């Protein structure tokens, strides 16, 4: 198998590696670079669990090859909280809203919402909801995720009426 040299930054740290052309970016980040917070759940681009940010855009790392990330700036779920441990606003909102149970789909949800709210953007709740339709969660029925979205949008329009 052909090996290729790649250089990229992952969570602001430089990473150099030799990878097979066929290795997916998701597999590379997990097994070679050690970023196991990235979860592979369908490996065909539907469930969203493996979402990371590549050059500012949320992408599914199961649908990219590692060689395609040569020269890219990559952020994984391990890289969004502050160095002092302070959670990213998305993580904080999800925590406060009980937006996860098993936590397997969670890193992808965090990354999609983090990309939408980057640079202090304040997307409408509806924009975030539409983006989240690309993420599958089998545990929560999405109730906490909806609440976290509302919190992030500072809308507070949903929630129990009963």
């Amino acid at each position, binding site marked *: 198998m052909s090996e290729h040299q790649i250089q990229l930054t992952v969570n602001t740290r430089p990473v150099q590696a030799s990878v097979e052309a066929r290795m997916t970016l998701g597999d590379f980040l997990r097994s070679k670079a050690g970023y196991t*917070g990235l979860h592979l759940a369908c490996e065909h681009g539907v469930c969203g669990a493996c979402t990371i940010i590549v050059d500012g855009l949320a992408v599914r790392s199961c649908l990219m090859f590692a060689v395609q990330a040569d020269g890219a700036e990559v952020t994984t779920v391990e890289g969004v909280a502050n160095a002092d441990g302070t959670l990213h606003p998305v993580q904080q909102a999800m925590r406060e809203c009980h937006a996860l149970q098993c936590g397997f789909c969670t890193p992808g949800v965090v990354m999609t919402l983090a990309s939408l709210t980057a640079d202090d953007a304040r997307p409408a709740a509806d924009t975030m909801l539409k983006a989240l339709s690309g993420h599958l969660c089998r545990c929560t029925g999405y109730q*906490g995720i909806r609440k976290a979205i509302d919190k992030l949008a500072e809308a507070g329009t949903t929630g129990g009426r*009963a």
Partner: protein
Amino acid sequence: MSEPISGAARFIGQRVLRKEDLRLLTGRGSFVDDITVPGMLHAAFVRGEIACGKVISMDLSQAREVPGVIAVFAAEDLGAQNVHLANMHLSYSPGIISRPLSSDYVAYVGDPLAIVVAESRYIAEDAAALAVIEYEAEDPIITIADAIAGRPVHPGTENNLAAEVNAPPNDKIEGVFASAAHVVGATFKHQRIAQSTMETRGVVSTPGGDNQLTVHIGCQSTHVFAGVIAKNFGLDHTKVRVIAKDVGGGFGLKAQPWREECAAIAASLLLNRPVKWIEDRLEALTTSNAAREQEITIRMAFDGDARMVGLDAEYASNNGAHPHTPDAGMPVMMFLTGPYRPPSYRFRGRAWHTNTVGLGGYRAPWAIEAFAREVLLDKAARQIGIDAVELRRRNLLSGPDFPAANPIGIPIDDITPMECLDKLLTKIDVPAFRAEQAAAREDGLYLGLGIATYIEPTAMTGVMILNSDVAHIRIEHDGKVTANLSTHSQGHGVETTHAQVIADTLGVPIDDVTIFQEDSTRVGFGAGAAGSRQAVIAGGAAIRASKLLLEKVKQIAAHALNASAESITVENGIVRVAGAEEMSRTIREIAALAYGEPHRLPPGMEMGLEAQNRYAPPSFTTFASAAHACVVEVDGDTGFVTIKRWISSEDCGVQINPAVVEGQIAGGLAQAIGSVLLEEFTFDDRANPTAVTFKDYLLPAISDVPVIEFTHITTPAKGEGGFRGVGEGGIIIGVPTLVNAIADAMTPFGDLPEDLPLTPPKLLKLMQSKTAA
């Protein structure tokens, strides 16, 4: 209810933020594929490509020659390690023998025939693809009807009957139906479901010295898995250590290790090397044991006052080729009459083998009881000409009926479905809805309101693995509290809920309590997540162990401070003597004394601060109750169903953490919505699975699940803490609630199809048939 938990309950009942979430939100969880062991190899499977037939030959030579391949084992290569697989009850199921690898015949598409072990998963998959297999193909047995009429799926067996179950004989029931004022019936079919845990199955099996085996594996109980693995491979169970910290969903799929996990373990034992197998989604959607696929023909008889006097059911389940354990509907039989006054009852259940992947338990495996009963009750209400809520009111067990028992003798004495229904109806204005519905129909919009009631059997006991749970709690020498529990969480939040229970009972800050449950060797046996039991049973154990420990703290403090034990209270980690604030000590100081100053302990007292309790609840099952309502709109042009409102009114006793309770209900409801509207594990006419990606197998997305409104009633259970289970209720009640709403919307067009899922084409066909008529 037992006596209240000591002190003011500061954590029980609060929406405490979950301890698990900090690691899970930051990518620091530890799932099975996150485990790496030096020298670890990777496995992939050679799988049968047809559903049914003899294996004439299998050439693995090319696979073995691929650089990086360490070994390729067929069944004959595994030899004695191609073991007879035990079930979650640590016993062998009656009937056919299931082993990790098949050899002379295949019984479903994806039947594992060989395991390839290589330096990487990529290489293992390359090699597996080079296997050359010749078959003598036969026509597959796919459906229950095929199984009843067709040749045996397993050569050498007489027929495809996997198991049967019957309610006690009832020679009066025909007379009851013959003299009934009203008889209503239907045949409901629940489609096959792919369990679809977001984390697929996986295992890292690491043989060690002294015949020890360490197994990291996706599971619902480290103890059950250690026991089953030991039994399977003839190992001393004390030599098997099962570790599972974070598990990405279980739902029943991970209740027992099955063929592929055990093949990987067998390979690791033969190679004496660590072997990892992580299922991919194609494997999960085709060869992970699937769920449901049940048919039930049910009849109800009513007297002139619309009281249900007879219930007669015939049930069949497609168990596939290699079920986790044959299931002919025993719990369906046990709970089919639900929360209603016991009618004359008959039930016959049959389980059938087919050339499909085996059956596994999936969140409330008996849930078709509520689907069939509650949907038929609505049909009965329409047929009799009575309001569906009124029909339920006339038949629900309530106050004066208790203590009661259902037709097969299960005691029912403290359920509250009537109260849940009453509360539910305060949240929805039914007359206003009916007016809105009538007006909408004028505009070609079809609105529907569905209501259902049920009781959920939780924390069932009566068999060894389910009878009890254990808590071993320790106040460490520095005053921190660690609790080893026989629980296991696949998202349930036990590290938080049980810390709440312990912190309240002991009187310590919740931040000081740490729960351990990931290692089978750390504490005694428990079944983990199975049957909505962890709050009820392990919660009870946690309270009792905490009380023992609290008593010891009080005795030590009383002796050291020259006070009476009765005058000591512990709150927020501070030990106080009544009326003597200056004598207050911290738990840490008492712990230092307990571990470090034996001469200051009461005479004869054991050093340290540790306590253990193994708890069994006082009844065979601890029922939770609920009533749900939902409102739907069916698009007259497309048949698309939009859920506009969903209200849950439930009584799960004392809630430890309402956010966790609501999370369990909502998650179950999402799965119910999937069952009613979206999900279907389908086959072509050669039994090839045809929904093999998440583009074809449709899970509910955020756009499919509405905001759920919750309301709670609290009727403490009789067991310790007053907790009732709540893990399965959402998926049980969700199905009939939604089906009833759609049926209500479709009333102008007649009866709904009785087979799930109710896809837009099916509803469109119903609407068009009426239009055409």
